[in-house]
């Protein structure tokens, strides 16, 4: 019950019209980005907590992490993971590049008018 309430209401708008300092769309994207940056900071602290606890229990030493060298197979897996990640988050850039190369790209709405009229 409370979790559902918190999901619904934690981000409630305060009474009072919100000012925008940048273009409203740009500021909205920045607000989402800053919230994600916050959650990344939280995740980094959680990893740090884990490392310190594991070190405290003698499971690993943090210096092992700093000096970690993947074997060749692992290095390739990790490199591919980075490539996949970058391609995933830069999808919009890829699609804009692809669009720039197209001479006769049409919008679905245009095609709808075209094939509807031809019907």
């Amino acid at each position, binding site marked *: 019950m409370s979790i559902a309430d*918190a999901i619904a209401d934690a981000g*409630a708008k*305060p*009474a009072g019209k919100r000012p925008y*300092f940048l273009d409203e769309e740009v500021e909205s994207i920045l607000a989402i980005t*800053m919230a994600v940056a916050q959650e990344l900071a*939280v995740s980094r602290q*959680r990893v740090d*907590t884990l490392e310190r606890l594991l070190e405290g229990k003698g499971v690993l030493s943090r210096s092992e992490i700093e000096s970690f060298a993947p074997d060749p197979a692992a290095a390739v897996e990790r490199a591919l993971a980075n490539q996949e990640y970058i391609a995933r988050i830069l999808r919009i850039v890829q699609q804009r590049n692809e669009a720039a190369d197209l001479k006769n790209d049409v919008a679905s709405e245009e095609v709808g008018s075209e094939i509807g009229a031809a019907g």
Partner: protein
Amino acid sequence: MTLSNAPQQQPYDGPPDYRVVGRHGVFPETNHDEIERINFLAQMNRHLSARVVPGVRAAYEQRVVPAFEKAQGRPIADRHEARRELLEDPAFRLWSAIRRMTMEQRQQAGRWTAIRQREALAQKAAELTDGDDRLQLDPTLAIPRYVSAVDHHCMPGSYHSEYFPGDVTNGANYDHGGFVTTAGLLGKYSDGGGHAVVNWVRRNLKDFAPKAILEIGGTVGHSSLPIAQAWPDAEMTIVDLGAPVLRYGLARAKSLGVDNVRFIQASGEDLSRFPDASFDWIQTTMFLHELSNSALANILSETRRLLRPGGVVLHVEQPQYTPDMALFEQAMRDWDAYYNNEPFWSRMHELDLDQAMVDAGFEREKLIHGGVTGVVDKDLFPDAAEDETEDYGRKAAWHVIGATV
């Protein structure tokens, strides 16, 4: 434990880890990630004031002022003109956008923590306060427009909204998340302002032995409890408009072992429940800027009526705008008025408060002026008196205006 590979401790200047805050019987539980969210947001505010604001100042001095003077052939006239010109500058706009977001993220983070456990918090508050006549609520009390129209400092629901009977959500959010805004400068129990007032009174009113003390707009008692503890023979009365903060406040006080307090729901404009000359000391702390012109006048008049001969009233506030305060600083301080839902902030800080006190019946020659900074446990928390960053309007460095009668 000391680890062999641990680096030497680095010099550090900034907010402490949130885990040093003082907890009490109704303080919300905070898990690892909730704490780290608060740590991040406190550091965000620190970063904005220490690393971003200097760029805004430079933009004002190097771009905004020269461009204005070139175009208009005269200097910028006042803080309103300075703010309007700053609004055209990208540095001010980007800083403003991020500052506003950080404020919203702080509210969201605090509300998440408070709302997810609000039934349990209400239960704890009820166990501490049920049947205790030191909590006096008035469900018929009308919330004035200066509180209801916009939620102060973007805090959804403000101090007064109640989500179910016995609710303390907004008290819990206000209490545990305030650390973010001041980056720890208010200390372990967010009570650095109260301790500062105690020290000021002990230093300046040496033989003062108050028996009845009133704090108006005292919310959860952050500033009141240090006073009640410093004068244990006195009875401390805290009035506020908001039931959730008062309910939370008495539970908090009792769990911290402070018993010479009572929390009463009332408007500071109408304290007719108390006879004339009921109090030796009346206090407000960072309160006057959340009023209106008429409310301020009414409250000052009530304080005059309620003070006993030999009594004192003290108001702790951010500094007033004076001719010797640079227009840039005035415009930056006005930010909260326009962009952080503090609608009275700008007008209040330009008032002639001395005249307002005289108009309320105080004698000009008995007015008091002073200054205080937040008093904290310096082993754990940053000391506002030594902190060189300026987070316009947020720093724990205040003016005191008051009067004896």
